């Protein structure tokens, strides 16, 4: 009896060890490339970055590449542009989606169903298939080659509206009904009662709006031509095209681009994960 139990415990121990071994292997595969990029960015000109076996840690770590990348391209301006675009995208998406979502979930009016259908249809149109027309519209508005033009088309995402609508619809009616009987207006009920109860979904919308804008490449690539207006992704593409041979510079640039998001992710991880689930159910 004890022998069998011991054998089972030993088998469980082995399977646990195998599990950790696999976890570490996958870890090396997913995080390793980032660390290699970081390591490359910290290696000075005196160190051979092509040598094999590779030196995973820089022998004389230096920040010189970061100074150099800021010298050859205005990388901090790019970062500021990205930050502006991302911040604006967060504000407009949170406010716009909450307002529209509340009306769709809680206010009764003729045409509500049509409005829902409009948002669903908009969600189904792939951005890639309308980007040329969006660009033509921006040209007519004289907003091409501006950061406002980068933000505008996605500033209230249809999917965010529907996410907020679902969040509001899941709240219990009673509290709002009481407020309604007390004579609170729709606006008061929205701001005082409903909005504080959907903070979680609002955070999901905010996190994904930030990440979407910060990481987006194709749309800013189409809208912006002036280097001074580039966002980080477009600027990195330019850096890669112009200084392709200098891996240290490209590595430093990409670390600058990815670090803020890693920090954000580390702090707000559960909203990132929650958003995947909610987005998948909708999409």
């Amino acid at each position, binding site marked *: 009896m004890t022998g069998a139990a011991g054998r089972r415990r030993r088998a469980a121990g082995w399977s646990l060890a195998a599990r950790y071994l696999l976890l570490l292997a996958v870890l090396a595969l997913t995080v390793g490339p980032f660390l*290699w990029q970081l390591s490359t960015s910290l290696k000075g000109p005196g160190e051979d970055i*092509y040598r094999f076996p590779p030196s995973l840690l820089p022998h004389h770590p230096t920040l010189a590449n970061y100074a150099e990348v800021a010298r050859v391209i205005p990388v901090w301006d790019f970062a500021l542009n990205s930050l502006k675009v991302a911040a604006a995208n967060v504000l407009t998406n949170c406010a716009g989606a909450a*307002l529209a979502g509340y009306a769709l979930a809680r206010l009764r009016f003729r045409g509500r169903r049509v409005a829902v259908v409009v948002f669903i249809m908009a969600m189904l149109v792939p951005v*890639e*298939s309308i980007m040329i027309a*969006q660009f033509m519209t921006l040209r007519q508005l004289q907003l091409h080659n501006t950061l406002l033009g980068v933000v505008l088309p996605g500033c209230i995402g249809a999917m965010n509206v529907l996410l907020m609508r679902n969040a509001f619809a899941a709240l219990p009616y009673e509290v709002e009904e009481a407020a309604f009987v007390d004579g609170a207006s729709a606006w008061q009920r929205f701001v005082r009662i409903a909005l504080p109860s959907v903070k979680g979904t609002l955070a999901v919308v905010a996190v994904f709006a930030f990440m979407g804008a910060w990481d987006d*490449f194709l749309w800013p690539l189409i809208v912006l031509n002036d280097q001074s207006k580039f966002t980080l992704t477009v600027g990195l593409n330019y850096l890669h095209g112009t200084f392709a041979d200098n891996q240290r510079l490209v590595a430093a640039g990409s670390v600058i681009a990815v670090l803020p998001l890693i920090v954000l*992710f580390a702090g707000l991880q559960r909203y990132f994960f929650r958003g995947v689930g909610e987005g998948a159910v909708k999409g």
Partner: protein
Amino acid sequence: MGMRNAAAAVAPRDSGRRRGIRTHLPTSPWLFLAPGLLVVGGFSLYPFLSTVAHSFTDARTLRAGRFTGGANYQEMLHDPMFWTGLRNSVLYVLGVVPPLVVLPLLLALLVRRSVPGIAFFRAAFYLPVVASVVVVGLIWVWLLDDRGLINALLEVLGFGRAGFLSDPWLLLLSAMAVTVWKGLGYYMIIYLAALAQVPRELHEACAVDGAGPVRRFLTVTVPAVRATMVLVAALSAVNAFKVFSEVYLMAGAAGGPGGEDTTLVMLVQQAGTGLSGRVGYASALSVVVFVLTLGLMLSVLRANRGEDR
């Protein structure tokens, strides 16, 4: 932006009617909706309609077009680049979807059990999702460089160096690998949520019956998360078909040697942008992207429903 004004307009007007019950002003809900409808209408639905309309004209960036009937579509059929782009986008779907359906499921099973430190591993596996596709592309361009880490490794192992970024086919495969690498964590989270719904007893009963892990995976796990697998297939297929950034970064704006790696969305971008952009032709290409994307999504979902019967 307009939303601020709308909000300000709602507040005073409604609070003035505090006494009345059921005095929704007929306009109030529309003020809530106005910013969203304006943006979605002006930047999704209107562009869609204008894309369809433009696709029947010879419009250019700086010149309104004349109606030319189906000329753009006809030209497309005779444009070898269109067929290259279509081939690559379809190949991308075929190459990327199977690994993105299977690997994240295995990954989810690996991180499912809450052993010490598992939260760290889950977060770490999600990291490539958080990073911009540009950063991810550049990381792999460096790894797959002729003198990069992977080629050095291959040489030491005696395989010789491979032109991951110069051979058109290897380039496309490399881009696919990067897409898979970047997507793993995302679909892993979707599977984790699905696995949480699978009752534990099913697995245990099966284990008691003496079924090995592979048998249990095929007879318990896969049927239990089949609906999620279809969802993942649909999502990853649609995204793969619209691939742009990975190929653009790794193969260059022209789509690799001789444009052999150009994808459909890259063609849209090439044809429709710039001061001499052929908006009409790019719109026709866009319509094709739209129709095929939607068709792809519907056919995956329908294949699933057909199986249920």
